């Protein structure tokens, strides 16, 4: 095949130079890869690649540090917002964000999340809500929908047995330290673009010292949901979005 010379004006898309070439461990169809890409792009476009520290969680995104070419600290399960608090307080000129799943941020780490938000820490939490524990093999998350089957709710989530799912973004909206809460998704190209704008805004808030921002990304887990990537996107639209509606929850 003849080599094609790409002219600058013909390039419509390029991978962020902050995205490393490591092969991703995520399942095909998973939302994580898309969100990683968006974060890398935002950091690059804001010129923050030498000033950013990421805090990776325990969960599927534990290896986030293998994919974005910035400094990282890997936190204990749920503690990312506490870890990020100190990093930012000790380096107020830096960009510090956490990247956490629903189990990490809104189950085991609820306390750390709420208090970092209440204190108005100038950090960003990127919150991947796919209503399931992906890494440990598809168990119930606090965000698992009623009736949804998981490894620990094999007959479907029953509120009498398993309690109700909750929306932590809505809960955090009541806190004075929080400046920006938004619920996004990456299941269509249009949503991907919106999600990127939301991430950019959150990162700008943190650098401007406006307080705590969180971008919730309503995501798919096609392995955990036992659906093909396409079916998972459809399921998300039909089941997740009615309970976790997209849009800004708080923006001040």
């Amino acid at each position, binding site marked *: 095949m003849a080599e094609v010379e790409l002219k600058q004006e013909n390039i419509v898309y390029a991978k962020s130079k902050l995205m490393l070439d490591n092969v991703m461990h995520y399942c095909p169809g998973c939302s994580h890869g898309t969100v990683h890409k968006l974060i890398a792009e935002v950091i690059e476009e804001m010129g923050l690649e030498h000033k*950013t520290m990421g805090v990776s969680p325990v969960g599927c995104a534990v290896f986030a540090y293998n994919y974005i070419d910035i*400094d*990282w600290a*890997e936190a204990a399960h749920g503690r990312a917002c506490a870890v990020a608090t*100190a990093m930012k307080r000790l*380096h107020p000129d830096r960009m510090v964000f956490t990247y956490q799943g629903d189990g990490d941020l809104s189950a085991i780490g609820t*306390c750390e999340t709420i208090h970092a938000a209440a204190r108005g820490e100038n950090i960003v939490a990127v919150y991947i809500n796919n209503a399931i524990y992906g890494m440990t093999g598809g168990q119930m998350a606090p965000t698992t929908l009623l009736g949804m089957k998981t490894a620990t709710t094999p007959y479907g989530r029953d509120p009498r047995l398993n309690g109700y799912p909750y929306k932590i973004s809505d809960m955090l909206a009541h806190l004075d330290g929080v400046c920006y809460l938004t619920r996004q998704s990456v299941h269509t190209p249009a949503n991907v673009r919106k999600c990127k704008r939301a991430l950019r805004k959150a990162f700008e808030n943190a650098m401007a010292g406006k307080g705590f921002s969180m971008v919730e990304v309503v995501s798919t887990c096609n392995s955990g949901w036992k659906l093909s990537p396409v079916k998972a996107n459809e399921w998300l639209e039909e089941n997740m979005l009615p309970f976790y509606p997209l849009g800004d929850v708080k923006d001040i």
Partner: protein
Amino acid sequence: MAEKEVKLMKGNEVIAHAAIRYGCDGYFGYPITPQSEVMETLMELKPWETTGMVVLQAESEVSSINMVYGGAATGKRVMTSSSSPGVSLMSEGLSYLAGAELPCLVVNCQRGGPGLGTIQPSQGDYFQACKGGAHGDFHLIVLAPNSVQEMHDFVADAFDLAFKYRNPAMILADGAIGQMMEKVTLSPQRPRKTDAEIEAECHSWAAYGKPADRERNVVTSLELRSEEMEKINQRLQAKYKAMEENEVRYEAIECDDADYVIVAFGSSARICSATVEIARAEGVKVGLLRPITLYPFPKKVLAELAERGVKGFLSAELNAGQMVEDVRLAVNGKAPVEHYGRQGGSIFTPDEVFKALKDKIINR
């Protein structure tokens, strides 16, 4: 003439002064009796207005230790303090700190347990402090002060050791040392390290924002490949061995001609030094071996004392018998080793220890 900075201070207060003067970058803590004066003093001194030190009251000890993890991950000198139940909550964080090889300082002003227990002094956390105290094979560097002056001095020593070995260090005090006031000479104020100095010192590992001239740094304790994880463990063990070879500290009081040796640390050692005086006055040749580093433990000197012909050792602790196991391992059967202790916040008297020495060792 400049006034010498001799002050009368509580052990807990002096921790705060020493941290500021050492050039500590951040303190993250949660109140618990009997150590709350550490953060209270810091908040009163407002070091963020002078040295730039960050002081933050966290929502829990779990959060405190993870803030310490975050701060340490960026190469800063950070610390927390708590008392026994709070330190239990920090166990997870300590394991992660050790696993990620992060230097930091944790002060445990012990109280009696188990559970909520009492707020009175105890040494019941020896096992927790010295035997890892959380999951995985790791050690903290553990220093045991027996005076307010040592509370002051060990802040600098612990930070220096923590950075030398990239390992968390603990000052294992107790309610008595924390609440007591004594004379203390404060060290001069040292400047905090600049960001440039930290970047030079911690270039190879810390996460402070990846500069153009190096690869990204990832602070983590995770390694799923078992052959790699084993290598990490071997490196940690080599580090602990180096500590055992180079960092053992102890005080030997009247041990040279001693027929019997009391082994005690921290506040117990203060009490037992009075026991030595009482015994010597009665013509009984008793010495006191005070481990200053509980980890690494002064095994060698104990083995030498046993070898030299000491007739028996009494490990006097404010617990049910914890350090005595290390004393026995060191003495290795060459002489009898017994334990005497009080628990639940009760404290033994010098006479009580002497009686125990007679009952359990001398007249046995």
